[in-house]
C-alpha cells in the first residue's frame, strides 16, 4: 500500500489527480474500520492530517465555512451559536474518542445515509466546497448525495469545506438508537427554523438510500407558520401532528437489523414533532 502525506491542499490535490484511487484519510474513524477488518484494501492512502487548512473554520458574510477535517469536538465547542443543528448532532456522533478525530468531511465523503452531520446540513441548505488540481466547485448539499455511499465527488476531487448560513433561528437534531454512544442511528431528523426568510428546513437520516429533505413537510410548515412568526404562540396540535406525518411520508426506509421500515416511519414522525415543539418553544422564548 502506498502512503502519501501531503502538507498543503495544493499538494494533496496534485497527488489525488495522479492517484485517483487513493483513499483520503483524516481522523480514520470510518476508513480504519474497513482496513482493520480487511474489508477494504486500498492501493494508496492519502493522509490529510498534515494539511492544516482543512482543520480551520471561519466566518464570512453571515456564513460559516467549516474545513473538512475540523473535528466534531471543535464544532461542539466553537460553532454551537452559528450552526446549532450541526453542533447538537455533533455531540451525538460516535463516542468522545471518535469526536476528537472524526469530521464532517468524513461524513460527506462516506455519504452514508446514517451520517449524523448530514441531516442538519440539509436543513440549512449547506454547500459542499470541493477542490481538485484544476478546479474548485460548490455543490449544493441537496445535489451531493447520489445513492447509498455515493456522492457527487469526481475521482480527482477532495472535499475542502462545507458552507452554512449563520443560524437565524432555532435548530434541532434528534435520533433513535439502542444506546447513546457508538450506534448507527435507526433514524434521525433535523429541523431548522429560518424566521428571516419565513421558511423551515429539514433533513432525514437513516430512512432512505440517501439523507434527504422532507420538502412537502417544509412547504406545509412554512405556510402554517407564515402568520405566526411575529407574536408567536403555541402551535395547534393538528399542525404539529400533520408535520410529523409528512416527514414520515417523505422517508423510504427499509427493514434491516436495526429496525423495520414501519418503526422508522413511526419514530420519524415522533422526532419531527419533538424537534418542532422544541424549536418553536425556543422561537417563542426569543420573541418575548
Amino acid at each position, binding site marked *: 500500500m502506498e502512503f502519501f502525506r501531503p502538507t498543503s491542499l495544493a499538494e494533496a490535490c496534485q497527488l489525488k489527480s495522479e492517484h485517483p484511487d487513493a483513499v483520503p484519510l483524516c*481522523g480514520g*474513524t470510518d476508513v480504519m474500520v474497513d482496513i*482493520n477488518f480487511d474489508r477494504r484494501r486500498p492501493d494508496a492512502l492519502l493522509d490529510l492530517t498534515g494539511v492544516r487548512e482543512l482543520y480551520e473554520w471561519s466566518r464570512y458574510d453571515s456564513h460559516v465555512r467549516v474545513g473538512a477535517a475540523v473535528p466534531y469536538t471543535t464544532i461542539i*465547542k466553537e460553532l454551537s451559536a452559528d450552526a446549532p443543528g450541526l453542533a447538537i448532532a455533533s455531540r451525538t456522533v460516535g463516542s468522545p474518542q471518535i469526536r476528537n*478525530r472524526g469530521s464532517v468531511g468524513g461524513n460527506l465523503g462516506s455519504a452514508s445515509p446514517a451520517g449524523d452531520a448530514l441531516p442538519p446540513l440539509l436543513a440549512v441548505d449547506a454547500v459542499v466546497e470541493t477542490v481538485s488540481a484544476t478546479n474548485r466547485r460548490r455543490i449544493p448539499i441537496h445535489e451531493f448525495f447520489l445513492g447509498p455511499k455515493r456522492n457527487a465527488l469526481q475521482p480527482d476531487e477532495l472535499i475542502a469545506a462545507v458552507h452554512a448560513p449563520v443560524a437565524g433561528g432555532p435548530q434541532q437534531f434528534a435520533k433513535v438508537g439502542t444506546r447513546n*454512544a457508538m450506534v448507527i442511528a435507526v433514524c434521525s431528523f433535523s429541523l431548522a427554523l429560518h424566521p428571516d426568510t419565513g421558511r423551515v428546513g429539514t433533513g432525514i437520516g437513516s430512512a432512505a438510500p440517501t439523507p434527504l429533505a422532507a420538502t412537502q413537510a417544509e412547504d406545509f410548515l412554512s405556510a402554517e407558520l407564515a402568520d405566526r412568526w411575529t407574536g408567536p404562540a403555541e402551535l395547534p396540535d393538528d399542525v404539529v401532528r400533520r408535520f410529523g406525518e409528512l416527514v414520515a411520508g417523505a422517508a423510504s426506509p427499509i427493514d434491516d437489523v436495526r429496525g423495520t421500515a414501519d418503526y422508522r416511519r413511526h419514530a420519524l414522525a415522533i422526532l419531527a414533532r419533538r424537534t418542532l415543539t422544541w424549536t418553536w418553544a425556543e422561537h417563542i422564548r426569543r420573541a418575548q
Partner: protein
Amino acid sequence: MQLHVNGRLHELALDNRTTLLDALREHLGLTGSKKGCDHGQCGACTVLVDGRRINSCLALAVTLDGVEIRTIEGLSDDGALHPVQQAFLDRDGFQCGYCTPGQICSAVGMLDEFDQGWPSAVTTGGQPAALDAGEVRERMSGNLCRCGAYMNIVPAILDVADAAAGRSSA
C-alpha cells in the same frame, strides 16, 4: 519513523498499515493498551494524543509523527499512581481489568475536557457547573465494561472530579 511515547522518543521501522495500537503493543512492548474490538466500539485501546483521548486502533502510527502520546504506562509519576488510577483502586472500579487502562486514560482526557468547559450531549444550557453521574456516564460512553463495573467506575471518577474541585463526596 519516530514515536514520542510517555516522554521517550522511539525510532521505529513500521509497515505503514500499522495502527498506533499495534505499534504500542507489538513493537514497543507497551501492552497496557488493550485490543478489544479493533474498530472503535469498546474504548479499551484509548490513549492520549497531545492530551486528547483517541481510539489507538483507529489511528495509523505513521500519521502520529511529532505528537506526544501517553498510555496507561505513562500516567504514574515516579511510582506514585495518577489520581484516577488510585481512585479506581479505592473504589474497586473493575472486575477483570481488561477495559481498565482504556477507562482510566479516557477518564483523564474527559476530566480535562470538562475543565475546558466542553459540553456533552446531556449538558443543557451553558457551561456545566459540576460533573454528576449522568454527565460522567455520557462522557465515558465510549468505553465499555463487559463485567459491568460501572457502579464503581462512575464513583471513582466523581471522587477525582470532586477532589479537584475541593469537595468531598463521602
